């Protein structure tokens, strides 16, 4: 007798794509605003970007109920941190907290594919990519979600240094200006929207700098 499989899953995938690019003194975090289930659209105007601290912004695709629960936990933990330390959490600290929070549920994971963006303690942009159980790495740029397979190779082509064997060694920050990074993000999303059915409707872009956060909204194809 073959093993019986569950006819109910606690998870669902609400689709969508998230991208983040780090600069020398800024960080761009972007995500589309389409929320879907199966082949249907649930909302054309759902934000996948959430500010956790002054210098740390989280963007997550996957199962949005788990994403919401994860955001609430991180928000409460951040409040506790502020009460204890009298200051906001730095982005690297938040990155570690997110990793620990995800691994805490190693055996019933948050179905959330995260990209954390922000400014590090020196004021330089930083991006952290995660898997569902908390494995993370600091990178210069990252993409997660249904359109990530379309976007990531293109970002590699544009932003990655030719080979780690070549000198001089390049740091983890991309040498783009803020305007170029925003333009690149708009380009990749427009392309991903063409071929990924789960990406589209609107693009929400958050630009994080030392003096504050700016938000931009751009239309994408709605089909």
């Amino acid at each position, binding site marked *: 007798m073959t093993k019986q499989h569950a006819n109910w899953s606690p998870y669902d995938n609400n689709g969508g794509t998230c991208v983040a690019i780090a600069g020398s003194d800024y960080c761009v975090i972007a995500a589309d605003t389409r929320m879907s289930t199966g082949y249907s659209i649930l909302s054309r105007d759902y934000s996948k970007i959430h500010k956790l601290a002054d210098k740390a912004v989280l963007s997550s695709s996957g199962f949005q109920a788990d994403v919401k629960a994860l955001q*609430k*936990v991180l928000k*409460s933990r951040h*409040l*506790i941190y502020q*009460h204890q330390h009298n200051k906001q959490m730095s982005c690297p600290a938040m990155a570690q907290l997110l990793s620990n929070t995800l691994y805490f549920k190693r055996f019933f994971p948050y179905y959330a594919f995260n990209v954390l963006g922000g400014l590090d303690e020196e004021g330089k942009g930083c991006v952290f990519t995660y898997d569902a159980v908390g494995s993370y790495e600091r990178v210069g740029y990252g993409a997660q979600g249904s359109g990530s397979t379309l976007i990531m190779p293109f970002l590699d082509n544009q932003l990655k240094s030719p080979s780690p064997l070549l000198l001089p060694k390049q740091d983890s920050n991309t040498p783009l200006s803020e305007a170029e990074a925003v333009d690149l993000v708009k380009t990749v999303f427009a392309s991903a929207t063409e071929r990924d059915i789960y990406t589209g409707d609107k693009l929400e872009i958050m630009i994080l700098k030392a003096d504050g956060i700016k938000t931009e909204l751009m239309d994408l194809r709605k089909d």
Partner: protein
Amino acid sequence: MFRNQYDTDVTTWSPTGRLFQVEYAMEAVKQGSAAIGLRSRSHVVLACVNKAQSELSSHQRKIFKVDDHIGVAIAGLTADGRVLSRYMRSESINHSFTYESPLPVGRLVVHLADKAQVCTQRSWKRPYGVGLLVGGLDESGAHLYYNCPSGNYFEYQAFAIGSRSQAAKTYLERRFESFGDSSREDLIKDAILAVRETLQGETLKSSLCTVAILGVDEPFHFLDQEAIQKVIDTFEKVPEEEEGDEAGEGEAEAAAVAPAEQGGAGAGDQDVAPMEM
């Protein structure tokens, strides 16, 4: 009150129906340095006197932020106060997490009072030795509560606790009827004047007091030293003119000290704004 055979245990009643350990805990509150709270319909101001153990040490923190819409000032055993503040913060965060809305301050003080009551009915515990002035918001506006070690709590328009708080209470009793419609600035001024009453002669400087405010459209925050000093300057600068307006009643309370204050304030304090005498 004097030592008697019914005061060793918190779980022992006296023949006259008193729990002496609880009353002794309330004495501990009276020994701490003063804390004052006042409220209008939309704002609550908490102020306290900064008392340092010695000249070498810094003063203890007696006002804590519990949430954007709740703050607490303590008097008595500051360690107990710190622990209770942590409990209040935790309750507030848990409520926000579950209900996605701020914890009404009236609910918080009940939780706090119930927690204090437990310590009055367990033989292996002792009552908390701290009085808490909890200021916060709920749907109907701003509220000020006093939680005492006995597990009782009361709502106040204005109150003062700690050492020499009677002087502040007398000042507040004279003025409290106007607080409800007070402007934010007047409320702060009254709080600082009440603090001055507890100092009884010592010149009021911004370094001697801590003031915090919260309101319907204003999250809890501390006032910085310059802001406090500016308010002090409005009534310390011209002592003669004070006789006419609101601080005049305050002067009556410290009447014996007034002549010394006018002279002393000018000569004694070089770092406060120069007195125009």
